[in-house]
């Protein structure tokens, strides 16, 4: 009996230690997403922190009461012949632990919905839209200046970077051409699916220059793990220079006849972003 009690305390101690170590962010054990560089990612980050407050309180309170029960009410700790009180319930108490969690989850839901309305509406005021098209196994990025970057997946993950300027609100228009893919760069924001048949929208507005890595997050076939993403955020001036380079390269390619660069079979350039073709059960 005593041995198992000690083992129990040790186990809980170990779990707490792991949580503590991980909260210090040592060696690939981060308790939260990478520091976001785009405001929509920052909002998700903040929301995650806010949900963590009641979550940690509830976690500690319930685990502590479980531990209390385990230690305090075990038969070996009770006086000989102890007969537990035969309680069948307590309506007032039961109402309390129905209402209290209800308030907590309603508050979390309301706050989440607020963020959702603010950051996940496709109508962001941006006149700079890049079309991101997913295929097995890579991404095509078509810029408003009419050139396309092909980011074909490789095993090593050294894919062609998707170059964007910092401090510019960029709208991303996602298209699927074969199966469903999902574009995810954790340091920027959450993921958006590229679904064949309709367009999805997201946006980014990167504040810091740098290279951000991501991956396709929806199983899309044998090459799924090769379908990696590199986003390279550069200054406005560098970006404009880079765009000119791409345009010049394209002109040169067009001068000599070559096969068309980007097949874009997606048939729906829908203007209204919230179009939802999937049937909703009535």
């Amino acid at each position, binding site marked *: 009996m005593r041995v198992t009690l000690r083992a129990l305390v040790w186990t809980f101690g170990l779990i707490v230690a792991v949580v503590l170590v991980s909260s210090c962010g040592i060696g*690939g054990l981060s308790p939260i997403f990478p520091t976001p560089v785009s405001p929509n990612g920052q909002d*998700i980050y903040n929301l995650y922190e806010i949900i963590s407050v009641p*979550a940690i309180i509830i976690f500690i309170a319930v685990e502590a009461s479980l531990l209390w029960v*385990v230690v305090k*009410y075990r038969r070996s700790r009770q006086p000989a012949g102890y007969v537990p009180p035969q309680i069948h319930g307590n309506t007032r108490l039961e109402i309390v632990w129905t209402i209290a969690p209800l308030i907590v*989850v309603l508050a979390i839901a309301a706050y989440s919905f607020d963020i959702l309305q603010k950051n996940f509406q496709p109508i962001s005021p941006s006149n700079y839209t890049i079309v991101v098209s997913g295929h097995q196994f890579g991404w095509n990025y078509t810029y408003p200046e009419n050139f396309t970057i092909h980011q074909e997946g490789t095993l090593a993950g050294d894919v062609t970077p998707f170059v964007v300027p910092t401090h510019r609100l960029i709208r991303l228009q996602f298209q699927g051409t074969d199966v469903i893919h999902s574009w995810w760069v954790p340091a920027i924001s959450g993921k958006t699916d590229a679904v064949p048949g309709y367009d999805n929208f997201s946006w980014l507005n990167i504040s810091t220059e740098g290279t951000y890595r991501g991956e396709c997050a929806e199983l899309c076939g044998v090459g799924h793990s090769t379908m990696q993403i590199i986003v390279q955020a550069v200054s406005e001036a560098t970006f404009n220079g880079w765009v000119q380079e791409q345009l010049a390269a394209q002109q040169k390619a067009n001068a000599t006849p070559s096969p068309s660069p980007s097949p874009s079979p997606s048939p729906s350039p829908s203007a209204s972003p919230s179009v939802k073709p999937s049937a*909703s059960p009535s």
Partner: protein
Amino acid sequence: MAATGVLPRPKAYDDTFWKPITLWLTTTDHKLIGIMYMVTGILSFVIGGIFALVIRLQLATPNAKVVDPETYNQLISAHGVTMIFFFVTIFLTGIANYMVPIMIGARDMAFPRVNLLGFWLVPVSIILYYSGFFTGGALDAGWTGYAPLTEKAYQSHSLGVDFWALSIIVWAISGIMASTNFLTTIVALRAPGMKLTRLPLFVWAQISTSILLLVVGAPLAAAMILVEFDRQLGTQFFTTQGRPVLYQHLFWFFGHPEVYIMILPGFGMISEIIPVFARKPIFGYMSMVAALFGIVFLSMTVWAHHMFTVGMNTYVEGFFMLMTMLIAVPTGIKFFNWIATAWWGSIEFTVPMKFVFGFLATFLIGGITGVYLASVPVDTQLHQSYYVVAHLHYVLFGGSVFTIFAGIYYWFPKITGRMLNRTLGEWNFWTLFVGFNGTFLIMHTLGLEGMPRRIATYTNEAWATTNLIITVSSFLIAFSVLLFLINVIRSWNGGEIAGDDPWLANTLEWATTSPPPPYNFERVPPVRSFMPLRDLRESGELEAETPSAPAPVHV
């Protein structure tokens, strides 16, 4: 002859070599069918576990080449399908098949032959699924089998997807049969005095599970039939030209309630086991039942929370987020009632009770991470990452599997007449508890750092150490399951004799012999509350019963 009811049969008929074989193949006894369900479930658990170990070996190091990506995709699909469809659901159907009729004082299920057919469809379903491996490769699109990846255009090299779809259709029919049977049995065959308000909570849990499976089994079969139409008849329901997201709606309308189909019977077991070992009645019986039905209702209104990144209207997403979070309320009621039941108790920490507390400690984590995942903005980060893998294992392994172990250690004496070895049981629990948390607790961080699920390998060195720790811990789980199997095999014939009621329990199954005779009860005991056996024990009526060994009777 009238006293025992033995039908005179030729002796030679019973003693042939074929007797045991024909007995198991043709039996309509709910107990034997229940045992076959449970054995099938455990075998699936072992097979699914072996798949998991290969997956973990592949992920232990970056750029590993233990299996190629195509095999890897088949392994993760087979792991999911095996564990969800062929282990947890099947095992729980088995334990309910065995226990529900006895707990309500019935002699068998309402439709014994439907029960027989329903069980034998399960091996058919399992064989169909694994047949895929011999046609050039089984399902390789994850256990969810999202279209259009399962369509002919992208998966034409084998019949794996077709066999999967057929297998799931057969499985759904089997599940609908079992659910109908459970509901009819519980409504129609209760013993005198067993009012609905006196049903054991495990039986209530089985009612809610059966309602869920009855409602969502058919849409699942429908989705699979449409997938087959697309593949073999050239329709365009879910193809690239069709509406792939419709498949997700149909699948998750089954898929999310399935989560509760896999945990509600476990909730029922917890509600049975805590009162027995704390020597206190369950706290808030009525609110426990109400919470069950709250979960049943809510679980059918949350399916699209698996689809927050497909691009739905934000108000639709808000609705599914709200309903998902509301599930925390009935689940919380159950959780607090369990703690209140144990509070002030005189708790004996037998092996089943250890698994119960292991369940409470780990399932809580799964519940809390569920709230993060329900929040739409946060979910767009966590969705399809290792955070989800960790979360789902906390509710399915820390939840369902721990309750299954609790149930096995609790009811094994009733089923076999022998106790499971306690020392091996303690080892089983502690290695499982440490191995489980070691595997899945740090897995959350991989998801937060951006490791998507279902990738065959990774190049990021920062994930290497975490993945290695996870792989090592997963082998501790395998060791623990090995201890469990040794314990079961050793104790089945060689364990300590249990007697009718080794735990001093509350419910009717412990009022009969261990194992119960084919007809369950010689005389059904009177039922005066939801703890009929305890009433008998306290009023002294139990002592008055003659403990004569019952004669074998065929009814």
